[in-house]
């Protein structure tokens, strides 16, 4: 009655595995970002769509080519390049020239990830590496380009969007006000509503804090991201804003805080692994974001705060290493 078992696998235990997969997780992240992305396209116009197309396209192509040239197995299907491309676009203002967005994506995937050996080996969040690269290289272009000139392939659908996005952000105005007189030239509280629902200043990921929070909550409930990172981040940011004598609500809603706290700082690869470590890391992100905003040269310091904490993550992992069960003080 022997029967051939050649079709079966004689593998080591465990013989079953959870349904969680890397592409599955990445797709959840994408799904959580889709409402924000769509809302950005609807409110800001097709320039936003163009930006998404450029960063996602270049991210995917860069990763595919890199693997090809390095003769490594193709990794596009793990979904991480898609997430990087999506996040990168959301971290850029709609007026970003397409070539700059393309350069950012190239750097994000190439120098931010693949050069380290691909997914899991990079120290820093690739999307933020890409964004940091263009902010440092072409800060002037990014901050001032009011017209989109020759690089604008697609026209705006809304005139309102066109006007709004050509101006300086409230955050920059607030910082300038504070530096000049210590007082604000506008009512911060009046900004809550636009920041929550429809804000056309700043990057694609700043259009609606509500949508970002909802997306983040979905990921937390689904067990994909750890609440400790956004909680530590946003909590510290609010506390620090209050300590600096400013309006905490405005400061957690404005700029890249929500996108950073829920979607950038929670990147698995570049954040610590233990629960305690993640809380410490979240607090660190919030602290450095606040310091950058209130005493640093940059009102928008989310990128560098998170990148800095990325660098500290291995250290945090080391000091929050779990205690092996059974390693109790015994009398021998």
């Amino acid at each position, binding site marked *: 009655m022997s029967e051939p078992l050649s079709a079966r*696998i004689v593998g080591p235990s465990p*013989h079953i595995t959870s349904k969680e997969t890397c592409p599955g997780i990445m797709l959840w992240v994408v799904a959580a970002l889709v409402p924000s992305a769509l809302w950005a396209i609807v409110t800001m116009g097709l320039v936003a769509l163009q930006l998404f197309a450029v960063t996602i396209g270049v991210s995917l192509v860069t990763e595919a080519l890199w693997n090809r040239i390095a003769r490594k197995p193709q990794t596009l299907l793990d979904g991480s390049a898609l997430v990087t491309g999506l996040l990168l676009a959301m971290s850029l203002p709609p007026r970003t020239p397409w070539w700059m967005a393309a350069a950012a994506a190239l750097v994000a995937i190439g120098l931010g990830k693949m050069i380290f050996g691909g997914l*899991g080996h990079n120290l820093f969040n690739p999307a933020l590496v890409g964004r940091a690269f263009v902010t440092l290289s072409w800060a002037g272009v990014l901050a001032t380009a009011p017209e989109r000139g020759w690089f604008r392939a697609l026209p705006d659908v809304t005139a309102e969007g066109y006007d709004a996005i050509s101006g300086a952000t409230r955050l920059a105005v607030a910082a300038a006000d504070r530096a000049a007189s210590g007082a604000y030239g506008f009512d911060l509280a009046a900004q809550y509503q636009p920041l929550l629902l429809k804000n056309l200043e700043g990057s694609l990921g700043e259009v609606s804090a509500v949508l970002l929070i909802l997306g983040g909550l979905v990921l937390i409930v689904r067990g994909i991201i750890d609440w400790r990172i956004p909680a530590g981040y946003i909590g510290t940011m609010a506390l620090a804003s209050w300590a600096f004598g400013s309006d905490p609500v405005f400061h957690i809603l404005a700029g890249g805080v929500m996108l950073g706290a829920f979607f950038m700082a929670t990147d698995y690869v570049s954040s610590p692994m233990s629960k305690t470590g993640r809380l410490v890391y979240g607090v660190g992100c919030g602290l450095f974001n606040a310091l950058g905003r209130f005493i640093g040269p940059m009102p928008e310091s989310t990128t560098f705060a998170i990148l800095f904490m990325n660098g500290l993550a291995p250290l945090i992992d080391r000091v929050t290493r779990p205690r092996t069960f059974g390693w109790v003080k015994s009398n021998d």
Partner: protein
Amino acid sequence: MFRGGVHPPGHKEATAGSAVEWAPVPARLVVPMSQHLGAPCVPTVAVGDRVSRGQVIGDIEAMVSAPVHSPVNGTVAEVGTTLTAAGMTVKAVVIDADEAQELESFVPVPDTGDARARVRGAGIVGMGGATFPSVVKLTPPKDADVHTVILNGCECEPFLTCDHRLMLEQPERVIAGAKHVREIIGAKRVIIALESNKPDALEALRAAADDTIEVVALPTRYPQGAEKQLIYALLKTEVPHGKLPSAAGVLVHNVATAVAIADALETGKPLTERIVTVTGSVARPGNYRVLLGTLVSELIETAGGLVGDVERVISGGPMTGMALGSLDVPVTKGMSGIVAVPKGMAAPAIADDQPCMRCGRCPQTCPMGLEPYALATFADRRMWDAAAKRNVLDCIECGVCSYVCPTKRPLLQLIRLAKAAAMAKGVKS
């Protein structure tokens, strides 16, 4: 509650309601001489010998061992070897069973008045799967003060329901076993622990217990039934690293082992059969009382045969059991289940290099507080000392890390390599 752990789908519905029934007596039994941890037995019978049910057919003079008995009345057809579920080739006695069998009668283990000797004589080993000879556990080191006996009825592995049915159908035997163990060991406290997913068994045990025995329901979480985790969940004590539970004043026995001990002490019954859950992709999943030495292939026939696309057939549970390379291996003392895992549910064959995406799941769920991703990376790079320094030898091989990993990195497999290397280098555990 112990640290970490997971809650995989239970898949117990298929057999939780199936009362234990006898599997047919096979025409020929293959009884391995090594069904336990420790020294293998030497056959004490020769080809052509008549053997009776309960008669010793293999034994050895060694502390860590357990004699083997004939499960049937019959004739020795062969003294040779057999492949086991673990994929090893061991000595075995092959017996042709008589046409008519009296399963109620057996040759009893002689009663010399020494309970431990009788438990050893009955060949009792840990029936939860560990197969450690019970008499050794019942003889704790002189300096240990064992105050608590825990009977483990958690059955935290998915699919398995043999202990569940035993507790439900024979609660008074479980209680009897608990009392015998308590008496042998001189313990003050007895706790019978099971997971909350077996409320009927809980009720049955509570009804059968007197007030000297605590019956406790624990949260349903894998690996609740792992010795160290169970002790912690019940007593909030950690078994110190590298020590036996007796160092924490505790002795843990599986519920089926306790029943076997009670049977041995009350009637002299040797261990010649056990309950096996046969489930997964089989036509008639159920709990069968099986004579040791019955081939798994026959047992699967009893359960109606395999159905559909079966990818792995596992001896034991899917988290810690062994995938069978051949179905023609005998049922042994530690075999709690046969699980036919259908295609799609089984873990994928391990593909080449799977990256760690640093998601944090494995260090957070490892019940031993290890960092499986790091240990696996050390193993990958042959950094055995580094792995040893990060306590790789504390791994209980529960499989939680491999189970949770989203990139399906073969964590436990790599960790086993590191453990073997650390042990070979003589790192003190």
